């Protein structure tokens, strides 16, 4: 298989539209999938990439949820903050933004357990939401100076007498290159370049007389390098694009493709100068993305599972309950388990977390107290095939037709295929 990044020329029907809406967002209702299939790949993708007109009420609902985040962050209520994020992802008319923010939240993993400041954590999330689809260099620069990140990586006291190697190491190991693509001496030298990058009154501040302005050598570049210069140097390394390509593939395809494809994806990233929206415009329209090897078989993370269930059903759920359920399933927004971020694929699944996923499904189907019922209803003769298609990607026949719409949905969500997307 050569040049899998070439434009996809196959059919763009219901299956393909569903695949695109699941991966480039959090799934959709049957009518949304139908509408996208009718548009064809080019116009559907344009909408997915955010260039459509958003209906007023939908936009207001989405912004209302975003504003709620800011309010609960100030009050220090982490569950409310997690819930607000989840509901804004459900309401979002431009879910690629939230999906990409989730990717960056994992890539630049920062945990409130250490930061202990929800306003700072929410501000970091805003960075991911607003800069996540722009140029990577810009996002990286902003995150490297983000107060929550500085606290998390002990960047707050960073002087020429005591350079912070931890920060320099994570920039290379986790953010830009990965293990094996730098030497220990590069870290020591990079740490010198970052001296003076401090935190003062909760904001980034460059303290000139704490900065080591001597000559440094990082990854082959020599000179009086400052922190931003080091970021540029990291991004100029050939391996950087491959490192990011592998992670993006893992996230959007469900598995890392063969090396040849990683190289092709990396080349596309380089050609688009690491501009995420431009890159994704090519990626989501590629032969690679629509290849049968990468359809359906991707275990959803807890956030993806609950948000897509609610979006596909156009259902409601209590914000804090949603946050609690995600935690029981093993994922706490704003609080990943460590610098390496969250698990992937099968690592999400064990007896406790699968039981938690099923508890969510059974409670949703029961319309349990505190959880509101499904808002919109299908026509009287419930079109079970449509529900099955949108939730599972295939036709599954229930043993009987349940009385309430949501119970039928519960049956489909109880199938193991509902965890894949």
């Amino acid at each position, binding site marked *: 298989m050569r040049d899998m990044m070439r434009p996809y020329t196959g059919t763009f029907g219901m299956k393909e539209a569903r695949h695109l809406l699941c991966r480039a967002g959090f799934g959709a209702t049957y009518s949304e999938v139908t509408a996208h299939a009718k548009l064809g790949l080019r116009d559907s993708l344009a909408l997915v990439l955010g260039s459509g007109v958003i209906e007023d009420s939908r936009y207001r609902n989405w912004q209302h949820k975003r504003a709620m985040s800011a309010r609960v962050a100030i009050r220090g209520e982490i569950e409310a903050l997690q819930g607000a994020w989840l509901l804004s992802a459900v309401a979002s008319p431009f879910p690629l933004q939230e999906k990409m923010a989730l990717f960056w939240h994992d890539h630049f993993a920062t945990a409130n357990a250490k930061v202990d400041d929800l306003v700072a954590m929410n501000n970091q999330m805003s960075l991911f939401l607003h800069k996540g689809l722009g140029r990577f260099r810009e996002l990286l620069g902003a995150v490297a100076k983000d107060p929550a990140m500085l606290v998390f990586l002990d960047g707050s006291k960073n002087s020429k007498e005591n350079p912070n190697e931890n920060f320099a190491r994570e920039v290379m190991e986790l953010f830009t290159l990965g293990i094996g693509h730098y030497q220990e001496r590069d870290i020591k030298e990079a740490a010198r370049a970052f001296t003076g990058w401090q935190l003062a009154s909760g904001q980034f501040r460059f303290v000139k007389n704490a900065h080591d302005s001597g000559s440094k050598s990082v990854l082959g570049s020599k000179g009086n390098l400052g922190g931003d210069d080091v970021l540029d140097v990291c991004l100029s390394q050939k391996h950087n694009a491959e490192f990011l390509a592998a992670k993006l593939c893992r996230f959007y395809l469900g598995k890392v493709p063969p090396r040849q494809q990683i190289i092709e994806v990396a080349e596309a990233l380089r050609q688009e100068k690491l501009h995420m929206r431009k890159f994704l415009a090519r990626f989501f329209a590629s032969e690679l993305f629509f290849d049968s090897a990468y359809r359906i078989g991707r275990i959803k993370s807890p956030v993806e599972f609950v948000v897509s269930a609610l979006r596909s059903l156009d259902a409601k759920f209590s914000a804090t309950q949603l946050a609690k359920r995600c935690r029981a399933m093993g994922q706490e927004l704003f609080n990943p388990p460590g610098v390496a971020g969250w698990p992937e694929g099968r690592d999400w699944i064990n007896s406790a977390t699968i*039981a938690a996923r099923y508890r969510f499904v059974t409670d949703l189907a029961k319309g349990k107290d505190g959880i509101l019922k499904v808002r919109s209803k299908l026509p009287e003769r419930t079109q079970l095939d449509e529900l099955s298609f949108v939730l599972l990607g295939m036709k599954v026949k229930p043993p009987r037709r349940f009385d309430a719409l949501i119970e039928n949905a519960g049956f489909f969500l109880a199938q193991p295929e509902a*965890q*894949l997307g």
Partner: protein
Amino acid sequence: MKRRQFLKTSSASALTLGFSPLLRFAHSPDSKKERRLILVELTGGNDALNMVTPRHSKSLRLLRPTLLRSEDQLIPISEKYALHPNLAGMLPIFKSGQMSIINNVGYLPTNRSHFRSLDIWHSGITDKVETQRGWVGRALKEQQKVDKKLDVSLFHLADGPLPLCFGGSPFPITTLKTLDDLRFGGGSEVQEIIRKASEGEKRKGSDADFLKKTTRSALEAAKKIGATSRKTPDGFSKDHFGRQMGLVASLAQAFRGNQIFFTHLTGFDTHAVQNESQPVLLASLSRGLVALQKFLGNLGFGESTILVYSEFGRRVKENASRGTDHGAAGTALLLGDQVRGGLFGGDIDLGNLLAGDLRPNVDFRTVYQDVLSGVLGRESKSLKPDFGQMLRLIRPK
């Protein structure tokens, strides 16, 4: 004291003399008897010298001016050794011969990285990096080949991903932190739907198949727990370790059959002001172990062995922050009715250190082999100790 010495060194003659403690073990083991193994990992590198301390040691007092407790605070367990005061609750267990203390346990060459050292203890392999299979998983697989009817339930009660020691297990592992974690919700019709949906096998090795397998074993575990009281048994504290011990107790009661549990206590990486944190952890450890030992003793069925270990001990000399840095050999504990009880592993020799650390004299795998022979009835072929002799920590049956 004297009597126990006699029992240890001449079990044959003790049998003929018919001392009552041995009569219990004189019968051949009931192959249907449930056996339980509880692994307790003290994660971070427990300072063993502060847990089991040489008494009246002038050199230790010089090397640990702030960390070493005064003699009158320590709890003597023999002429030479004493326990940390916060382990006072465990003294009766030691005195009744149900606890073995194994000093100088470790491996060579020593490695001071937490990750590498934990991988070594979990995999049982020192000469290469093993990331998939662990000592328990491999031993179970071997045993299953010989005993087709073998059935063991494994439980992961600690935080974090599945422990490497369970890797390669032919039996499913149930992960939970509370009994409620395995609740599926919904009535019997819903549970039936879920059960039916998780039956069969579409494509072996696929994600759907993996999801089904996990769901099936979780449903089974939930069913067994179903009838059990959700209330934690009495006597267990509500701290992190106490909760895990209480959960072991509930599961031991609910699940008949052989069980292996993985639990942990974290926070032992005491590089600074050690006396502010380690004593609290030791108190929690003691409370939890005492409560569990008592509960299991009263249960009336099954035989339990508790193994307490850490990935390395800490340096003999305290550092400038009134803490200790990563060391080498440490101390393991083995608790249970069938352990031989007493002190093992030779003396803690402060005059024969290995680059400032306690020298490993007992290969940790000899301890594992003793545990496996007691719990599974045989040692594992894949655990090859590099040095030290077998200690025979479990009484012969």
